[in-house]
């Protein structure tokens, strides 16, 4: 039984009041009995203005068993090949230790290196494909061939033209080399040049940066904002400036590497809650406030909840109304990373806060990147004026990293004005509507084919489950033969049996382009249990 009766006898802790209620905020009996809740049904529906439909279908049992069997066979052959390489029966292409280092701790014996040598390299022609045009809705790829099963590559000299691009994060179609954004960027290059040559704090603060930051603050609806040259560095260099020892970071299970790195660099205590699970988060918050820091039981200096807007490997959207209710009740702070959701969600393209119809002032730190929807590079942080002024002096990125390049900043300014509609045309609203239509159409199409799709109905990131390792390689190659470029995702980024192919729809895709994606029966990936799979007309592999 949880010791809630003692709460009323405690002194009020710093920043925390009114804990005399002994029931949890959501007053759910399921929490107290710790029964697992069905994730496919909305809880606390009164906080949501429209239906929140997410689905993560469970792996069918037979498929899981066969996937493990496949990995077992690959492991056995991996050991065989390692043996042959060790005894010099086979030519070695991989990095290895020198003879003088044999008595030291082995460098390449761990699982990641084994996986890399024996599983990843066999199908690695599906990644790092060189793109030689604008990565818009269609792109050109340089064809490669390999004489020794993907250890080395050579160019054949041919270029594959007009490959449908379902892998680039190009949600609003701003990755283009013609049009108003490109013209404005050319003018900015002629005015400022390309390099800045200094950091923000020294001589790298241009007036185009000031203009950009004011525009971003207006776009998000916050008091002030700051822009950085690199999205990954925005997370990893600013979280250490915000928290330190004696603070608690509650981060989602599936947060991006930049958030994890920033949290670890800050030397705060990190606790992880289950993905998008509000009961798990609430339990952690209550435990943190009740017990305080680990040995001394002093209250935490601050509690920071770190979540993302759209999780790119799952396609799920964060349950923001519930998190804001929890944060207000338990007096914690919220850091929202809108890398994929800014520009892609919401009726005005203003991200996940706009999508749920909430007040941007409720989110303490709104972070995002310009890479995905704005066709540029870099990241921003928005919030109260005191916070941003503090970050201007104390962020590692502001002090040590070069500031954003002027044509990139101009591209963001132009594209943001188009999205807000301030350039006088309806181009922004058209693109937002087209993205929403494409998302709904493509998800419906894949679902009707019977494939297991993860994620929320409204997210433009669409992971399609493949499960078996050989299917990632085979699917990528087959799709390239049909002139469609996709991204397959396997072990380190996802759990080992849940490999997937991830589609990213764009506003620049037309319906005809999406109709060319025809996933035939060869994949046997149509695992949805609701549809009875009748194998009447087989499509054969040619």
């Amino acid at each position: 039984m949880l010791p809630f009766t003692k709460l009323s006898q405690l002194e009020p802790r710093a920043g925390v009041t009114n804990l005399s209620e002994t029931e949890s905020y959501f007053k759910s009996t399921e929490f107290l009995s710790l029964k697992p809740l069905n994730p496919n049904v909305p809880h606390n529906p009164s906080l949501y203005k429209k239906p929140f439909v997410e689905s993560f279908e469970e792996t069918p049992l037979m498929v899981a068993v066969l996937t493990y069997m496949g990995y077992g066979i690959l492991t056995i052959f991996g050991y065989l090949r390692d043996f042959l390489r060790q005894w010099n029966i086979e030519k070695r292409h991989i990095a290895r230790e020198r003879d003088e280092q044999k008595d030291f701790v082995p460098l390449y014996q761990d699982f990641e290196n084994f996986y890399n040598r024996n599983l990843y390299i066999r199908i690695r022609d599906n990644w790092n494909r060189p793109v030689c045009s604008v990565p818009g809705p269609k792109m050109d790829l340089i064809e490669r061939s390999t004489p020794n099963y993907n250890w080395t590559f050579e160019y054949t000299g041919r270029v594959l033209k007009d490959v449908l691009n379902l892998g680039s994060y190009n949600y609003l179609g701003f990755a283009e080399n013609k049009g108003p954004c490109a013209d404005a960027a050319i003018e900015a290059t002629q005015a400022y040049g390309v390099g800045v040559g200094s950091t923000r704090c020294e001589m790298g603060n241009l007036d185009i940066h000031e203009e950009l930051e004011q525009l971003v603050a207006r776009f998000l609806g916050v008091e002030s904002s700051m822009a950085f040259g690199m999205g990954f560095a925005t997370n990893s260099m600013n979280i250490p400036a915000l928290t330190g020892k004696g603070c608690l970071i509650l981060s989602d299970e599936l947060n991006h590497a930049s958030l994890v790195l920033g949290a670890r660099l800050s030397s705060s205590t990190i606790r992880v809650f289950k993905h998008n699970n509000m009961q798990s988060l609430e339990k952690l918050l209550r435990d943190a406030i009740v017990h305080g820091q680990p040995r001394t039981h002093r209250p935490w200096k601050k509690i920071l909840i770190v979540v993302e807007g759209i999780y790119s490997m799952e396609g799920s959207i964060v349950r923001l109304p519930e998190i804001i209710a929890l944060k207000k009740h338990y007096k914690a702070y919220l850091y929202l990373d809108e890398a994929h959701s800014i520009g892609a969600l919401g009726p005005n393209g203003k991200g996940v806060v706009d999508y749920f119809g909430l007040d941007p002032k409720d989110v303490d730190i709104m972070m995002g990147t310009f890479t995905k929807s704005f066709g540029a590079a870099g990241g921003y942080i928005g919030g109260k004026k005191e916070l941003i002024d503090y970050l201007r002096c104390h962020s590692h990125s502001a002090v040590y990293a070069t500031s954003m390049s002027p044509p990139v900043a101009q591209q963001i300014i132009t594209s943001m004005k188009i999205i807000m509609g301030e350039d006088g045309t309806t181009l922004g609203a058209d693109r937002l509507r087209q993205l929403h239509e494409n998302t709904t159409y493509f998800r419906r199409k894949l679902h009707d084919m019977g494939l297991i799709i993860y994620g929320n109905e409204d997210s433009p990131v669409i992971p399609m489950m493949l499960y078996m390792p050989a299917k990632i390689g085979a699917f990528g190659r087959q799709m390239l033969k049909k002139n469609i470029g996709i991204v397959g995702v396997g072990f380190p980024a996802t759990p080992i049996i849940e490999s997937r192919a991830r589609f990213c729809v764009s506003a620049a895709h037309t319906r005809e382009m999406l109709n060319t994606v025809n996933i035939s029966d060869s994949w046997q990936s149509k695992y949805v249990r609701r549809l009875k799979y009748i194998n009447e007309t087989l499509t054969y592999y040619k």
Partner: protein
Amino acid sequence: MGLSECWKQLSWIYYQYLLVTALYMLEPWERTVFNSLLVSVGAMAVYTCYVFMPQHIMAILHYFEVVQ
């Protein structure tokens, strides 16, 4: 026509077998090794059944007192 349909069906089934057992990712000599092992183990199982099945069936029938 029936023969080419049959051949297509068989090659589709072989392709599915390659994908599920992850042999698709292995080099041709590795596939040969695995297929030979599988075929030899399967052949041994079939031969054992052929040699010992009559004795086993007689023992079962004797146990259930169907035959003396």
